């Protein structure tokens, strides 16, 4: 069964990330590399990406009659999507183990439709 692991980040985190020196970023990427290795070992990795920060977002809303384009993420909420992984897992417990191993503070786990074996 496939799951999406969605990483959410607060504004403070994003600001610190923007200003962080290379060495700090490298350390975080190293943690993610380790996580990716873990997934690969288990044959669980399907894919994943880091997303650019919230200030880079553009929202397209479909009103039915037309599309409205606005600057920014769709809602002014504290935590915004920062990245995601797609994983293969036998059941929710396994997916949750991966979510706990992910180097991030807040992860949402969502099943991917049509992926049940």
């Amino acid at each position, binding site marked *: 069964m496939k799951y999406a692991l969605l990483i959410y980040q607060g504004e403070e985190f994003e600001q610190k990330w923007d200003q962080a020196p290379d060495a700090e970023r490298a350390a975080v990427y190293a943690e993610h590399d380790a996580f990716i290795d873990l997934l690969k070992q288990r044959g669980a990795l399907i894919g994943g990406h880091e997303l650019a920060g919230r200030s880079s977002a553009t929202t397209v809303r479909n009103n039915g009659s037309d599309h409205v384009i606005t600057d920014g993420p769709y809602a002014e909420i504290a935590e915004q999507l920062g990245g995601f992984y797609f994983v293969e897992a036998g059941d929710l*417990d396994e997916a949750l183990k991966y979510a706990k191993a992910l180097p991030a503070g807040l992860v949402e786990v969502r099943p991917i439709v049509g992926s049940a074996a």
Partner: protein
Amino acid sequence: MTGDDPLERAYREHAVRLLALLARELRSFDLAEDALQDAHVAALQLWANDGVPANRAGWLLTIARRRARERVRREATLARKLPLLVTAAGDHAEPPFEEEEDVTTIPDERLRLVFTACHPALSTPAQIALTLRLVGGLSTREIARLFLVTEPTMAARITRAKRKMAEARIPYRVPSEADLPERLGSVLAVLYLIFTEGYLPSAGVRLVRVELCEEAIRLARILRELMPDEPEATALLAPMLLQHARRDARLRSGHFVRLPDQDQALWHHDEIEEGLELVVRAQRYDRSGAYALQASIAAEHTAWVRGSSTNWNAVATLYERLEQVRPSPIVRLNRAVAVAEAFGPAAALPLLDELEDELPGSYQLPVARAEFLLCLDQPEAAVAAYDRALALQTNDIVRNHLATRRAVAVRSTKSASARSSPSTPTRL
């Protein structure tokens, strides 16, 4: 429901075991429940004519499996993939009546049910509803009545929970060794929530919903039977029994009676004895586990049985230790009450101030404050605190009690020399 009919209880025990087994075989709770229900209906009809078979459970299991196969075949005509029963090729002719499963060989699958129903990915109300349904064997209607909601509301809650289980694929298993302690915590919490809801119902006109308490105790006993080496499972049962033992003494003529004033002849002493034995056993395993500590606290309150009174100093210390193991604002509130009893309310008031932000909806915090203020001869402030408590409390009997105490405070404001006796606001 749970109370009276021994036949009903016996069926329920069987039904839960069979449900667990079928759920495992069929990998679907819905299918298992429906199949079992079909079997039950068939049984009632056939047994009325042919008499009750000796191996009732085996019979039900056989019929349930057959009904499940029939349902699957019907539903397979819709183009859906189903992860289900092995159907042998050429499964056209109805097989002859199978050998009945020997009841003693039916493995006890109930533990899987318990852990699945209490999975943390489900909301707490969902965990409670599923536990009562799948493990307790209660009907949706019975559960709805216990929680004072309508049957459709409870049915929707259970349906949503099952849907989450299916969509997210919550596994039907006992967690691995490594995960067990954390997941067991969920289970214990659910059972304790069911008990406390019965012990002091959050709404309505009754002080105790005995059926809920009894159901929680019954489930705690089952858990203990299924996990005899797990100390917290033993420890959970102790405070339940010790509190439950006082159920008939907590009300007198519809009015709430505090612990020191209760008629001990109405206490169920056999339950107290059992509870105290369990406390000793729990302490032997591990004095510092959360439920062992709660058991010890409950045991302290039984001092009244031996003609003395609660050792509040000991209780305060126990709550302090409980705070280390399972920190929570309620634990800190209870500790504040114990401190007030042991050392006087002046010592405890500052402890309440720390809790103001953490327990916004709780009536117990203003009640404690009110009682302390009354003792400290500040009746006007006490009245204000009672008002806050009354605004938050929806159980009629507790409200009446609070109103009575408030009246005492009001009288105090009018007469400067009036004193009120110290009270134990949360000791019900």
